[in-house]
């Protein structure tokens, strides 16, 4: 099989499997998988920056929350219907990503991480500060009547699963096309050796900014979809924890692989789901996994797969 055929087979196979699973899964796991697919889209967005461009952002919750609040507030305050509200969320994410990118990309390395962390913290505090609109930590619920997209009730589990699947498929196929395109190859070149990419004549800043914008917009799409599908918008989704989660998922699944974010999200979601049945301190698992990953498997699960089984894994 050629590489292209293998790639198409692998990713098409995953999508077909996820599509088929909705008819057989019991209700509880059906709901979980819908949630996982939306969160995996968030992780896919994060991976564009971290895995392919080598930019570690510690503030991705800002983009997720920008999409979520851009959608939620336009429904709640401006009375938008879901379709324009989703677009409002996307635009909010795009604008925030462009602004943060333009400023933060003037720094490199550790400073870049701290700057993104600080911007995200400022965003979280801003959500709390405008508590009269956002309801702060308590958040607000998007009513069932406001969640009708073209006459489809998104609060219905079957529709919700399908919407999550559609979002995930679009994000997965977009990144797959992206990393195989010349643009994606330049991003990988920047990750591997920024000076060499610059020497070859690429405008590194422009490419990195584009990566931040793509990454932020995908994350915002996931945030907007999460708010709409699960009917809740709250400040927790803007907190540091939601900046750490995508990092955890991508590291676990394998940074710089297209499938990695989904694998990581799936594993981590069920790990936390199982452990929160035993203890309230379920973030302990996240901490232990982070430390073990940095020590023993910095490439993640799909990264190990790439190393051992198929070197051409995109």
């Amino acid at each position: 099989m050629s590489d292209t055929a293998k790639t198409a087979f692998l990713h098409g196979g995953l999508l077909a499997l996820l599509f088929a699973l909705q008819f057989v899964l019991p209700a509880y796991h059906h709901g979980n998988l819908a949630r996982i697919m939306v969160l995996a889209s968030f992780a896919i967005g994060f991976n564009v920056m971290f895995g392919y461009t080598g930019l570690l952002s510690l503030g991705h919750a800002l983009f997720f929350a920008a999409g979520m609040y851009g959608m939620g507030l336009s429904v709640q305050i401006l009375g938008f219907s879901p379709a324009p509200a989703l677009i409002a969320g996307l635009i909010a994410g795009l604008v925030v990503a462009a602004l943060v990118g333009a400023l933060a990309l003037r720094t490199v390395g550790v400073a870049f991480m701290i700057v993104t962390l600080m911007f995200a913290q400022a965003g979280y505090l801003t959500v709390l500060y405008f508590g009269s609109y956002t309801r702060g930590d308590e958040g607000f619920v998007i009513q069932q009547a406001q969640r009708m997209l073209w006459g489809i009730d998104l609060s219905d589990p079957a529709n919700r699963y399908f919407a999550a699947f559609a979002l995930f498929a679009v994000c997965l196929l977009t990144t797959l096309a992206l990393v195989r395109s010349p643009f994606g190859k330049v991003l990988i070149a920047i990750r591997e050796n920024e000076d060499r990419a610059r020497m070859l004549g690429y405008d590194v800043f422009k490419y990195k900014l584009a990566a931040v914008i793509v990454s932020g917009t995908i994350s915002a799409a996931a945030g907007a979809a999460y708010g709409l599908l699960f009917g809740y918008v709250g400040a927790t989704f803007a907190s540091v924890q939601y900046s750490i989660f995508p990092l955890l998922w991508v590291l676990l699944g394998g940074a710089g692989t297209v499938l990695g974010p989904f694998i990581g999200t799936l594993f981590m979601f069920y790990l936390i789901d199982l452990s929160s049945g035993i203890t309230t301190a379920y973030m302990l698992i996240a901490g232990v996994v982070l430390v073990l990953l940095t020590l023993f498997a910095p490439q993640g699960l799909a990264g190990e797969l790439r190393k051992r089984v198929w070197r051409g894994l995109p």
Partner: protein
Amino acid sequence: MDFGPYLMLASLEGAVTAAVLALTAVGLSLVFGVMRVVNVAHGEFFMLGAVLAWWMTSLIGGHPALGFAVALIVVPVLVGLLAAAADVTILKRIAYDPERTIVATIGILYILQQVTLMTYGPDARPVEPPFNTRLALPWVEFSDGRPQLYWPWGLSTTSYKLGVIAAASVVLIGVWIVMARTRIGLVMRATQMDRDMALAFGIPVEKVYGLVFGLGAGLAAMAAVLIVPIQQAHYLMGGDPLLLSFIVVIIGGLGSLPGTVVAAILIGLSDGIISVFFSPTLAKILATLLVALVLVFRPQGLFGVRRA
């Protein structure tokens, strides 16, 4: 109260914050300066200091001063040893790679925080201060053209708060003497300047790293022991000191100790004063944005010197 006494009260509260913040931030700055890594778990070592101080004082009982004195000496050492152990088992094995260290210390952050939640529980618990006399403060008022002292109602502080400021100053001077005047300080500074050259001269760089990481965590723990009679011990209390220390270390110039202390006093005082007159959330938003912009436009910090 008039504006004057009010401002004085706010500055006094700010001075206590500044003293504790200076200790915490110097610990973070030391680790960054010598090891070139960012310790995201720094706030959790602070939290651990407060929780262990509660545990130790309630274990010892008797006069509050006794338990407190023991805690003030033993707790920083315990936390320092724990941090040094984390350094040897985790950070050393990833060769202090800056990015992987951040990820690993985020992991350590959650481990410490959640283990505390499992053992100590979600409650906030107070520690009794060793001494706590209320001191009324005078204010000068001009009446009939002559200055007169009077004691406005509500303008007071406690002897303990003044004690915190004094203790923090003593410890900071101690740190400075160690860094500037002793052999171990010389070794640390040599490692900070050029790791490879220090190694070539036979300095056991990895041991120095373990020591510095422990020392940094110990300073945070000591700051927490000092503040815990004023603020209660809680498993989530590490977030604010971490954020503020970051702000201080960045404004003061990464790795510069005098800059860190100056910035701590500046930020502590203005935090105290701003939160009295404005919303604390707004103050935090402005402070975090300021830090981000300082890093973007003046990466050497406001007081730092740009390195070649």
